[in-house]
């Protein structure tokens, strides 16, 4: 075992020295390799962080949301509807929610108006989200007017601005009292937008949804798990698409690696010839080349991955953001929580190191079988 280790050490030593002799060539390849790992790692790290963020945000949302449908469209919940749900075992709380969208011509963006279940502001006052604060230049105790859909102008006092930490969910949020909400939208009395149900036991959620669908055939229950799953598969799908597009880059890189490895310089050929003349076997030359590839791969992987980490978590992935995040006028600014996932690293390794290894295999072999005499004679 010791002998084997010593042998590998000497091989690595020799390989490093030989790599250092051809700096310019190897640095070029290393640079391209690093860029490739950097791009792929940025994509995977970023989507994974987004997925985590979505899961974290949705963790606090109600287990089941019930919407009433009319002709396949979302409609208001009429009075008496909640009572028809009756008592379903396992449901802790049933509450009607009031929310809606408002298009503001000034910022050309949609706001979400909502009546919070607890701590609603006093009538005539609102609480706004951070992105709205930025877009309209608001501060505490400022007044702001919105023209309602009926054409009347409503003026509100900003009682509070929501904290930055919640920006991912509250960027475009405007919280107001029930009376203000109903007055602003001319919302019919006793009607609600939808119904939120809290279910304590996660295993019961599906049963509750089945019972709801049976009791109210015109209603659509939306489960939190389903929303989460949809988000996860959307982000995965986007990641997969970007990776599939980048596979062209992987292919190009493979071709480059092949070219680099097969275009042996006369000096390299002589080197291999001399090595074989002094007693190296073909297998030894392959081993040396294997170490060369491994060293380059690991270096590139490490540097590329660290660079991607910095790019995603310190510079908010500015290069890939538009594709992966989606788009909105009032897009929340948020800092992602750093998270590295084992599957992601393993997948990334498969995506970068395997194509490289596959591409250089044949050229390495070709170099290794060179006859010493033919090289030295030429």
């Amino acid at each position: 075992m010791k002998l084997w280790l010593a042998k590998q050490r000497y091989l690595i030593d020799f390989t490093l020295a030989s790599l250092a002799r051809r700096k310019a060539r190897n640095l070029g390849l290393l640079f391209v390799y690093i860029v490739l790992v950097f791009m792929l790692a940025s994509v995977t790290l970023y989507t994974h962080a987004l997925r985590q963020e979505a899961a974290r945000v949705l963790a606090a949302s109600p287990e089941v949301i019930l919407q009433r449908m009319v002709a396949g469209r979302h409609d208001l919940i009429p009075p008496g509807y909640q009572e028809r749900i009756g008592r379903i075992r396992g449901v802790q709380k049933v509450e009607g929610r009031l929310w809606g969208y408002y298009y503001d011509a000034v910022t050309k963006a949609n706001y979400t108006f909502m009546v919070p279940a607890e701590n609603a502001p006093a009538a005539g006052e609102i609480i706004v989200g951070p992105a709205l604060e930025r877009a309209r230049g608001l501060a505490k105790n400022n007044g702001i007017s919105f023209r309602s859909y009926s054409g009347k102008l409503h003026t509100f006092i900003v009682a509070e601005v929501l904290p930055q930490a919640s920006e991912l969910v509250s960027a475009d949020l405007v919280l107001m009292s029930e009376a203000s909400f109903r007055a602003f939208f001319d919302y019919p009395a006793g009607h609600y937008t939808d119904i939120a149900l809290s279910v304590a036991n996660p295993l019961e959620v599906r049963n509750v949804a089945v019972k709801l669908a049976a009791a109210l055939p015109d209603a659509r229950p939306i489960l939190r798990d389903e929303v989460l799953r949809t988000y996860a598969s959307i982000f995965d799908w986007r990641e997969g698409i970007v990776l599939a597009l980048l596979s062209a880059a992987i292919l190009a890189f493979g071709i480059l690696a092949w070219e680099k490895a097969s275009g042996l310089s006369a000096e390299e050929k002589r080197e291999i010839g001399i090595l074989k003349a002094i007693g190296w076997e073909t297998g030894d030359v392959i081993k040396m080349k294997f170490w060369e590839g491994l060293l380059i791969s690991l270096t590139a992987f490490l540097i590329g991955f660290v660079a991607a980490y910095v790019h995603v978590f310190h510079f908010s992935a500015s290069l890939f953001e538009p594709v992966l995040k989606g788009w909105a006028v009032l897009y929340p600014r948020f800092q992602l929580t750093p998270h590295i996932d084992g599957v992601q690293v393993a997948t990334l390794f498969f995506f970068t190191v395997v194509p490289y290894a596959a591409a250089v295999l044949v050229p390495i072999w070709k170099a290794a079988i060179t006859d010493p005499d033919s090289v030295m004679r030429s």
Partner: protein
Amino acid sequence: MIFQPAIIALLLASALCVLALAASAPFAVEVIRRWDIKSGSERQLQLERRTYLFSTLLTFVLGLQLAAVLLFVFNAEKMSGMFVGAMCAVGTLNVNALGFPALNAKIAVFFLAAIWLAINHVDCRARDYPLVRMKYALLLALAPLLAASAWIELQYFLGLKADVITSCCGSLFSEGSPTLAAEASSLAPVPAMWLFYGSLGAAIALAAWHGHGGGRSRAAAYFLAGASALAFAATIAGILSFVSLYIYEHPHHHCPFCVLKPEYGYQGYWLYVPLFGATAAGLAAGAVQPFARIESLRGIVAGFSRRLAAIAANGFALTAAIATAMIWQSRLILLEH
């Protein structure tokens, strides 16, 4: 569902493997028909040179298959969040009928690839390549299996539909259902423990015996291979029957996949990686043994076999130690005494 990064990576690895095998098949046929180490002809020289290429290539793709098993399970575990009713890898594998066949095929490929790699290793160290024909004949036999495994995997991934309600480990590994896994699960803990520790102990003892004899005893090597296969089956049965219960601290949860979840600190990998490594080493020790009679391999096979026995003994011992530590730490009382 095909646009999952890990799935693309797995399919990439499988495709590479099948391509490499397809590329080496004509060469394998040529070697079997024309190989003659004594000849100095141009063709023989060509063949000898090409063996370097193909043995490196195959080492690479089969090595990749060893890693792919891990990624496959890892990925199944991670994707369980996307299917209704799935809580761990079992749910993902149960989304369609091909999930478990795909996993089983991958595990079979893992062990066969390990055996082939061991034979290749022995052959490459001998001066006159005594096993080259045998090696490539085995490769030709292995090729359809690998292709089938890749095909099942592809069909499984293509058939992944997120709207399918799958059955999860609770129903598959519960004691009443009519499957082999359920039968293993319903094994009473005391006999299962005897089987678990007995077979691991036997495998360790045989490996020690084989190693002590310098890897020369043929009988010991075959017994070791048999004991390794048995220990593998017994360990899996033991995990199903009682180790999982101790880990989950729950008297009825028999799932062998939930142990891989982050909630349980990825403990399963500590259990499975040494087990798979040790089993592969034990099987390989037996597989290289028939060639010990060949003159140029005598010392090589013995030395290599001895090292494999050491790996097997350590791996099995590690598996047993880790399982014992998990049971020790658990607050579940399964057996009253």
